């Protein structure tokens, strides 16, 4: 396992009009489970290819434990990769597949067999050793692919490129738990690429959110949830995502449609975007209290029942935009209601980035 550092890494495909990445900075600790989260086209796979060595950075440095590997080919980087779909050697048996990366590195036959067997037992595929990949289910094949990636001793880095895309939803959870357990057991540094926030949140110690070739924020799931550094982080993390409505800072307060939402003593006056999670607001059916906002319920979506009361998501039109509130469904569409937002949690953005001094502390942001 290694400590991975990206230092001012830029990448541009030949003949591409613009860079895939510019000046990327990222540090991943030794033995860390790190998730790269982002929608398709964010540059996740390219970043993974830079780490594995399939692509090379146009400028900047990638180091493993301080050793510069920017120009090192994949085979010399001591990395392993699991792809979106099971990539196996079809003409070799499961056992031969597991042993293959050891064989190419000159590990002796007895040692190869021992390691392959141990890995197969760890993943519960020991009884498949003599079979060919063609006869296995997709899930079993992906397990073999994972086993082949992890079988090598003293790996610098394990890269997982949406490894559960091809797997049935019902089995995803099982495979994810298996992966996480193996990761903790062997203590490998792992990077997990996904567009699924649930996967990222359950697998990773820390998450980097990628958006259009930039890392908007790196942090724990909790940080990304409560203190997003950028509008897109708020929007992407959480289900549903953060409510984003236009507002302004004036006379030392964050205001929405003229009403004060939160104090904002240090912030520069001017227009901004107000962000609050559906969990940070509540609807008062009786009407607004002193500082609350006024709106009309436009939709109610039931997600479940708690103590006999239906709970879910209420959509409220505030005039400047529709927001969503997660709570008991105590009001029905068409009703005029008040919306109270927790002033201690609400955040504000200007030009996409978070304004300091309002809401929870961001912690270590990136890219700003």
């Amino acid at each position: 396992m290694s400590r991975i550092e990206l230092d001012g890494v830029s990448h541009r495909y030949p003949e591409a009009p613009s860079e895939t990445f510019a000046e990327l900075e990222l540090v991943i600790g030794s033995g860390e489970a790190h998730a790269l989260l982002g929608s398709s086209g964010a540059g996740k796979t390219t970043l993974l290819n830079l780490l594995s060595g399939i692509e090379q950075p146009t400028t900047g440095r990638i180091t493993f434990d301080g050793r510069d590997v920017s120009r090192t080919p994949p085979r010399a980087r001591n990395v392993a990769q699991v792809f979106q779909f099971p990539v196996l050697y079809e003409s070799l048996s499961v056992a031969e597949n597991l042993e293959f990366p050891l064989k190419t590195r000159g590990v002796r036959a007895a040692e190869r067999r021992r390691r392959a067997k141990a890995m197969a037992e760890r993943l519960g595929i020991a009884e498949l050793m003599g079979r060919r990949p063609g006869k296995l289910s997709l899930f079993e094949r992906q397990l073999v692919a994972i086993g082949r990636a992890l079988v090598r001793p003293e790996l610098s880095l394990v890269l997982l490129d949406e490894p559960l895309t091809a797997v049935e939803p019902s089995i995803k959870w099982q495979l994810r738990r298996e992966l996480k357990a193996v990761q903790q057991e062997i203590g490998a540094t792992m990077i997990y690429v996904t567009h699924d926030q649930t996967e990222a949140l359950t697998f990773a110690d820390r998450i980097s959110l990628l958006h259009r070739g930039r890392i908007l924020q790196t942090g724990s799931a909790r940080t990304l949830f409560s203190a997003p550094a950028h509008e897109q982080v708020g929007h992407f993390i959480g289900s549903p995502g953060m409510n984003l409505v236009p507002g302004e800072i004036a006379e030392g307060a964050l205001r929405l449609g003229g009403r004060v939402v939160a104090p904002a003593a240090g912030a520069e006056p001017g227009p901004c975007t107000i962000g609050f999670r559906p969990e940070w607001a509540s609807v008062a059916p009786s009407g607004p209290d002193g500082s609350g906002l006024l709106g009309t319920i436009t939709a109610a979506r039931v997600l479940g029942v708690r103590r006999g009361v239906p709970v879910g998501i209420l959509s409220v039109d505030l005039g400047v935009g529709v927001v969503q509130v997660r709570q008991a469904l105590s009001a029905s569409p068409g009703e005029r209601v008040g919306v109270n937002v927790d002033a201690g949690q609400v955040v504000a953005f200007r030009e996409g980035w978070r304004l300091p001094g309002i809401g929870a502390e961001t912690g270590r942001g990136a890219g700003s």
Partner: protein
Amino acid sequence: MSGRRPDNRAWLGVLPVVLVVAFSAVIPLMTVVNYSLQDIFDQHTRLFVGFDWYREILRDPRFLEALLRQLAFSGAVLLIEVPLGVMVARSLPRSGWLAPALVVLIALPLLVPWNVVGTIWQIFARPDIGLLGAALTGLGFEFNYTSSPVDAWITLLLMDVWHWTSLVALLAYAGLASIQEAHYQAAEIDGAGRWQVFRLVELPRLRPVLTIAVLLRLMDSFMIYTEPFVLTGGGPGNATTFLSQYLTSMAVGQFDLGPAAAFSVLYFLVTLLMCWLFYTSVIRKEDE
């Protein structure tokens, strides 16, 4: 199926195919079988001779020589064209504007009719006016396919390689195109060498298309007629007289219908046997 009476009307649906196959293959073939068992003098005078013609053909040294020549030619064609075709396919670019352009260029020889191919090479290799032949002569080589059996064979093989390697290359190219980039990346990360990439990543995917390629080339080369007919006429001597050539001279040249029919049946059986042997060996290996 379960609990229902089998409905035999479905056979009616097969009838058109049965009719077409009967008239295009079975009936002509049975006519040949019929001829091969009789001595035919004229329309009304014929004599049943049993397997006499077969015995005669199998004892004919010219038949056996032609058969050996045929096996050697098909073997050489396969040994050259299959590896060469795979090499060509591997060196073709997978994307970019050059890829379709090169594929079209490579496919061109396949569009040339057999007798034209023969004519092209007949002129191309002529030692007096042909580009290849004259160039070789100019360089001091003694090259003459009309007098030297070796030169005739070289010219024939070159011609067949030129004409048909494209077929193998195109089939292999299609096979290679079905391999996703991730397979190559995984092999690179695993530290596989070039030979291992070919053997473990590419060859398993090429297997089905190469099976087809070998079968097509085997059958086709085994039935080769037009090109040697145009190029050498079977000579010098009988050096390039293959089975079909000898058969034609027997059936059309001398009107020995009985022996020619027996020859045809044997020819057909040998071709069938070889394809069957090849195919079953491939299939059995796959099932292992």
